[in-house]
């Protein structure tokens, strides 16, 4: 199925054309993303993490009380 492509010279060395393409596309994407970014972004959804066992006397923030109860029952 795979056919050997003939090289055309110029920027056709392996990856050369692709690099040019990438450079153009990266610019285009950066521009578009920037224009989209003007609207307020929703904060990234924070995944619940199991807090590390606190050192004695250290007060840590718990995401919510249910998490804390479950954690303490373990």
């Amino acid at each position, binding site marked *: *199925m795979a*056919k050997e*492509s003939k*090289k055309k010279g110029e920027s056709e060395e392996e990856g050369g*054309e*692709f690099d040019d393409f990438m450079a153009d*596309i990266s610019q*285009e994407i950066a521009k578009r*993303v920037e224009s989209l970014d003007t609207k307020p972004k929703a904060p990234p959804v924070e995944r619940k993490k199991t807090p590390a066992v606190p050192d004695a006397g250290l007060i840590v923030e718990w995401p919510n009380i249910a998490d804390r109860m479950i954690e303490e029952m373990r």
Partner: protein
Amino acid sequence: MSVVNYGTREITCKIVYYGPGRSGKTTNLQHVYSQLPEERKGKMVSLATETDRTLFFDFLPLDLGTISGFATRFQLYTVPGQVYYAATRKLVLQGVDGVVFVADSQSRQLAENIESLQDLHANLADEGLDPRTLPLVMQYNKRDLPAGEISSIEGLDETLNFRDVPYFSATAINGGGVFETLRSIASLVLSRLSAPAVKES
């Protein structure tokens, strides 16, 4: 149709190479694949018959890495050009963001080009996509054939390019015009990221 996902910080674009049988759609993808640097070379999935005709479709995932904080992927597909694979063509067009129409420049293939273009429009309409606004680029392939066998670019453009979209002459067999075409359709697709078209999904 959704090409940008702020939740997962991903941009995914699906580009389909459409056109009559043996016009050079698979050859376009093969050239792109041949130019990928090793570290980006995934798998090009290609299902062909013994006579090298595309049986189902070709699929080339192009992972462009993280650009401006977005993991960017282009998915390149071809459709089987042969008339009796109509259902497959419809399936491949689902969720398409842009189309490259690969026309065979040979004069004797003009009717096939027209038929395939009409087929494209009908299938897009069936998918609820507007053939008049979907990003589209024309590629007039096989320009390396003897002048007596091929139609002029102007003639092809006048017959096929009624939307007046960007067009490229190509000799995909040796890579001529392949990346120019891809760059153009990618740019058109990306330009819709900031347009209200995003809300269409």
